[in-house]
């Protein structure tokens, strides 16, 4: 996973509630056996018409939002399925940061596993940032836990310390866990003694 320290880039606003994983990445793209290449499929039905031509009115089809790195969305962003294809598509498009009043649990977790920072902020603060999303650059500083809007105003946010640490250092979760392999084995031995039917 790539390190995430300071991100500067354009923010696109999709001020809708309940944007679900089928909207972010429809089922026909779940057949891939690769992680990459899903950027063109992100928000497919909103982005393209029936003949698969771009819909010019959709924000991500407009300059400078084609280069967006930050997405501002409504509450319950990413609800629905566990498909990691949704964050893979967002990442492949170029997004590294999602900002919304709330996120669905599995999607939230999946984003962090792929180096996408999800920032949860109160609705009014998301709206205030959205009002400034005119194509100018925002800066998200994970070390300082701050977002600087184009007008220079600073919004602070909170994040679980483990997630922050792992993102800042680009750590591999599996390698971290394998450092505790002896504890896992001890757990298994104890569980097997107490609940032998789990080990048949």
């Amino acid at each position, binding site marked *: 996973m790539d390190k995430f320290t300071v991100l500067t880039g354009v923010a696109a606003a999709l001020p*809708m*509630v*309940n944007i*679900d994983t*089928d*909207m972010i990445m*429809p*089922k*026909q793209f*779940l*057949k*891939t*056996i*690769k*992680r990459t290449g899903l950027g063109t499929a992100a928000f497919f*039905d909103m982005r393209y018409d*029936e003949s698969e031509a771009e819909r010019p009115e959709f924000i991500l089809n407009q300059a400078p939002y084609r280069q967006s790195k930050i997405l501002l969305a*409504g*509450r*319950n962003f990413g*609800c*629905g*399925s*566990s*498909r*990691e294809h949704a*964050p893979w598509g967002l990442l492949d498009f170029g997004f590294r940061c999602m900002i919304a009043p*709330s*996120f*669905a*649990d*599995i999607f939230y*977790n*999946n984003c962090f*596993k*792929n180096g996408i920072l999800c920032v949860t902020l109160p609705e009014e603060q998301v709206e205030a940032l959205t009002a400034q999303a005119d194509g100018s650059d925002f800066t998200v500083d994970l070390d300082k836990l701050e977002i600087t809007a184009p007008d220079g105003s600073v919004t602070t946010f909170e994040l*679980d*310390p*483990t*997630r922050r*640490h792992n993102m800042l250092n680009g750590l*591999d*979760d*599996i390698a*971290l*866990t*394998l450092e*505790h*392999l002896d*504890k*896992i084995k001890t*757990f*298994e031995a104890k*569980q097997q003694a107490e*609940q*032998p*039917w*789990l*080990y*048949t």
Partner: protein
Amino acid sequence: MAQPRTLYDKLWDSHAVHQDAGGGTLIYIDLHLTHEVTTPQAYEGLRLANRRMHRTDKTIAVPDHNVPSTPDRMEKIEDPESRLQLETLKTNSEDFGVEYIPMDDIRQGIVHIIGPEQGLTQPGKTIVCGDSHTATHGAFGALAFGIGTSDVEHTLATQTLSMQKSKNMLVRVDGKLPVGTTSKDLILAIIGRIGTAGGTGHVIEYQGEAFTSLSMEGRMTVCNMTIEGGARAGLIAPDEKTFEYLKGKPRSPKSNAWEAAVAFWKTLKTDDDAKFDKEVIIKAEDIIPHVTWGTSPEDVLPITASVPNPNGMTDPNKKSGTERSLKYMGLEADTPLDGIPVDKVFIGSCTNGRIEDLRAAASVIKGHKVADTVQMLVVPGSGLVKYQAEEEGLDEIFLAAGAEWREPSCSMCLGMNPDILQPGERCASTSNRNFEGRQGRGGRTHLLSPEMAAAAAVTGHLTDVRKVVSQ
């Protein structure tokens, strides 16, 4: 005295392997269910990092999402991508030594149907799968939740997951459901009440007579759709019905171990006085058959109601959301739900593809014909469900009514296999999601119970099953 704990607290505590300084906990996973859609990149990850599985005896693989529901599926799968994904599951399972149930095995079916059916799903286990409807298994008092592919890889490599503990939420439904109201109506009514984000950050425990009086299959329907209420997992404490269901299943504990297991399972319940962070209390007697009208599972109403009118809604988000839903669904505000014509009826999925669901639909449809304007698909959730249904003659009832009797698959629950809606087509569906395009681009989904779906098939429109049955 020790602090009183919820069932979730107990399941969490008993699986905690290690706690890190930042507040994350390493949770041991007792059962890992895998299917073809969310595993290829996980195995690819293991290969790239030159890692092996920590152990193989707690993982099982079964193809479901891409499997066609037509009888010729063993000879050919038209879509090359589906074929490749299915083959990849088989090769990966073989290469890494994971037990694999092939497509032509009678046990093949939707991953959440086969776990319980094989007795792999047991009280007290932690169960994961790269699929959000893993919540289903909570019906047994197991802590079961969906994970993304990175976590699938993590589980394969370590048999653990690094997690943050959720909060405790109680949903208590007192009293019994009225006649004609099913477990599906119950969970739809709950989602209508709490909303699709109502359970976010929480694990829900369901308590009350409305749940204890349900069969295990009814409980699975409830827990299955917990994710539609935003919670990662749903739980129902195990009881005699749970033990009865599991007794003699192929992978259930045997002989001496059975007694010991049951004795342990009986301890799996919330202590009196345990605190929940959030509580919702509902009366069962008020719940009648429900159906969704919009593009989110929370867009749900009793069948006697009418399509909502966005004019007059004060919340601007709600108003624009409703307008968008109605436009997508091709519905006029204030239209009575009872009477909305449908083109397709789908009975199946991990929500309602079990034997009791098929029996319930058959009992409504028996002696009737599927309306000329409707195509009806009945798709058993597993080969064993199909076999049992055929033993009972349910296939004959569906076929005589003019429905199609298919092979086990996720089928029309999500359009990854050939069963999809065409743009603008309207479907009465027993599945779990009515998102835009879920059943096919431009397709319109109304979620309901198997009984209500059968009634829609007979009349050609959404209707109150209680009227059809009493005729």
